């Protein structure tokens, strides 16, 4: 398939509108990064399925759409009662709420007496000195010319979150980042940009949730740049359960310095097309990288998980476990690239993607990709595709358990390995509920 057709005029107009709107709020250097990224997009267009890393993911439904870009926050887009359903009750950590990609001061909760060593603000409210830092980060980030989506994000972002932990922040920080799509207007596109810097010996737990009322069509295109300094730790959970008509494309770039740990779990059950891309550059020695994922597709959803771990230095461990459950005509894509550079001796990398197909029309494309240039390493990968075990199903039924319930039990058990790895109970609970909802409601596996 050739280059997806797109509405370039629409993007040009949107870009000019943005520049007018910024009206001098961005300095020349920032505009230059935006221009550069926008030029990349203009020249390259959306990725085609001829490109290796987009082979199974046809983005023409996104390319073909005319989107209206969200420019300004509007906290009245979603009813408060609705917003509350997306928040964790009794959450004592930091809560950051974005509506259509724009920060909401009203619904967010950042304690006033926050440790001086911790800086959390939305990008719009960032003080001048840090604005300059942000520009430097944008200039350095691979996002500016990685692909059309990340370039679009760089060109168009108007808000996002800035989390900066200095060295040696004693306590472990917990942050819930809540993205809500209002669905008030059709065809909204928004481009959140997050920057997270964790200083030496500091640690953070970040849970990001993406949800939306109803079934609206919109496009969330997010980029997150993360730097984890020496001996620092990040536990990153993402729950993507958006409207089944929406498009979700996310790119997370992680730099790991020595002895740091990055642990992520991506739960994806939403949108018509979702692409979760994680790019971990491990350029320090003795790092830990854990990427877990659980994806649930039904109807005609396409869920693409694209991971890349780059081992540059010795004595690093990475472990990747993805599990998929696909019903109806849904499709899953998993690509897991692991690159081990010549210097990275004693690398220990494990990867697996196991997928459960619940219908004959569901499909998974699994593509492990190991490139190993060091000789003293342990790297393994495995991918399995299977149906529900009929023998196990009969066993459960033979003990009085109804067929639907038995199916649910087996499906749930398949997902369990990922869920039980999640440390935070509130997050675990909310994922469990999303799964049960999907099993009971959307997939008609009524509990008897």
């Amino acid at each position, binding site marked *: 398939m050739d280059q997806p057709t797109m509405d370039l005029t629409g993007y040009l107009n949107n870009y000019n509108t943005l520049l007018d709107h910024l009206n001098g709020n961005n300095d020349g250097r920032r505009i230059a990064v935006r221009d550069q990224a926008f030029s990349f997009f203009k020249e390259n267009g959306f990725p085609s399925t001829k490109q290796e890393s987009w082979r199974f993911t046809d983005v023409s439904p996104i390319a073909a759409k005319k989107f209206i870009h969200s420019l300004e926050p509007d906290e009245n887009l979603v009813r408060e009662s609705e917003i509350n359903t997306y928040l964790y009750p009794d959450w004592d950590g930091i809560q950051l709420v974005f509506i259509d990609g724009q920060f909401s001061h009203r619904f967010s909760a950042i304690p006033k007496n926050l440790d001086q060593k911790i800086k959390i603000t939305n990008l719009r409210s960032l003080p001048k000195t840090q604005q300059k830092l942000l520009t430097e980060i944008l200039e350095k980030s691979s996002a500016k010319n990685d692909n059309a989506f990340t370039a679009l994000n760089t060109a168009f972002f108007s808000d996002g979150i800035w989390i900066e932990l200095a060295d040696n922040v004693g306590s472990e920080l917990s942050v819930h980042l809540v993205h809500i799509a209002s669905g008030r207007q059709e065809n909204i596109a928004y481009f959140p940009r997050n920057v997270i810097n964790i200083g030496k010996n500091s640690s953070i737990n970040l849970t990001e949730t993406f949800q939306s009322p109803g079934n609206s069509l919109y496009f969330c295109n997010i980029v997150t740049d993360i730097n984890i300094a020496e001996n620092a730790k990040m536990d990153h959970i993402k729950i993507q359960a958006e409207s089944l008509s929406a498009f979700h494309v996310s790119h997370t770039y992680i730099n790991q310095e020595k002895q740091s740990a990055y642990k992520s779990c991506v739960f994806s059950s939403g949108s018509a097309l979702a692409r979760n891309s994680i790019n971990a550059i491990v350029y320090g020695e003795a790092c830990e990288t854990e990427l877990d994922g659980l994806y649930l597709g039904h109807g005609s959803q396409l869920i693409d998980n694209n991971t890349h771990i780059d081992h540059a230095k010795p004595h690093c461990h990475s472990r990747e476990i993805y599990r998929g459950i696909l019903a109806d005509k849904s499709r899953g894509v998993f690509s897991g690239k692991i690159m081990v550079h010549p210097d990275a001796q004693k690398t220990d990398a494990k990867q697996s993607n196991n997928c459960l197909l619940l219908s004959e029309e569901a499909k998974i494309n699994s593509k492990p990709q190991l490139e190993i240039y060091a000789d003293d390493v342990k790297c393994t990968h495995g991918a399995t595709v299977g149906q529900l075990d009929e023998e196990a199903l*009969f066993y459960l039924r033979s003990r009085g358990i109804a067929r639907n319930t038995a199916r649910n039990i087996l499906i749930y058990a398949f997902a369990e390995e990922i869920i039980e790895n999640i440390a935070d109970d509130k997050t675990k609970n909310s994922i469990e509920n999303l799964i049960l909802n999907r099993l009971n409601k959307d997939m008609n596996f009524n509990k008897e």
Partner: protein
Amino acid sequence: MLEIKNLKASIDGAPILNGIDLKIKPGEIHAIMGPNGSGKSTLANVLAGREEFEVTSGEVTYCGHNLLELAPEERAREGLFLAFQYPVEIPGVSNTYFLKTALNEIRKHQGLEEIDAADFLALVKQRMKTVDLDESLLKRPVNEGFSGGEKKKNEIFQMAVLEPKLSILDETDSGLDIDALKVVANGVNALKDNKNAFLVVTHYQRLLEYIVPDFVHVLYKGKIVKSGGRELALELEAKGYDWLKNGNGQGS
């Protein structure tokens, strides 16, 4: 309790059961013996409702129901239990959760309330003792990594908790050491009363010293070729099956 009339079943068009007649009354223990491949497990599985087997003719009445019309779970809720010859491993599903769900489905069917956690625990502990099963196995996924003997004991343990009306034991004694064999027998004898019944498939008359059958049947090529009292088991042990294969046993 159970009446099987001229039951024929096949798999992928190949006939395996070729006209079985069998009647089991409450309080009775029946043993089925027969050479490998004669159809013993097939009969057990057809009774439990396995869908791969096609019933081509015959009738099965169980406690007033047309058994063949019931789904496997409905049969179980009506008190039919099959201890599998090869119990399947179910990763990710804990033994306790599984058993509690099963028990509650059965209780619901009987119009009883769900058992509460404490009562369930007490019941389970008590029944584990009767089958001498280690408590740690409860928390583990169903049969996963269980030894052969533990799998078999787990079947009897489930039987002891679910208290079925008709229990079909498919070679539960195979692969068990003598102590485990007694445990299985204890499980059966503890449950046995004049309202329930057992159909015990075995190759060894040894088990029948502990579980004393009222009737012994010999299955050969999908048919019951001889029936008798418990002395038939001894005779089989001494003589093997050859004398029956020639048709001598027909019309016992």
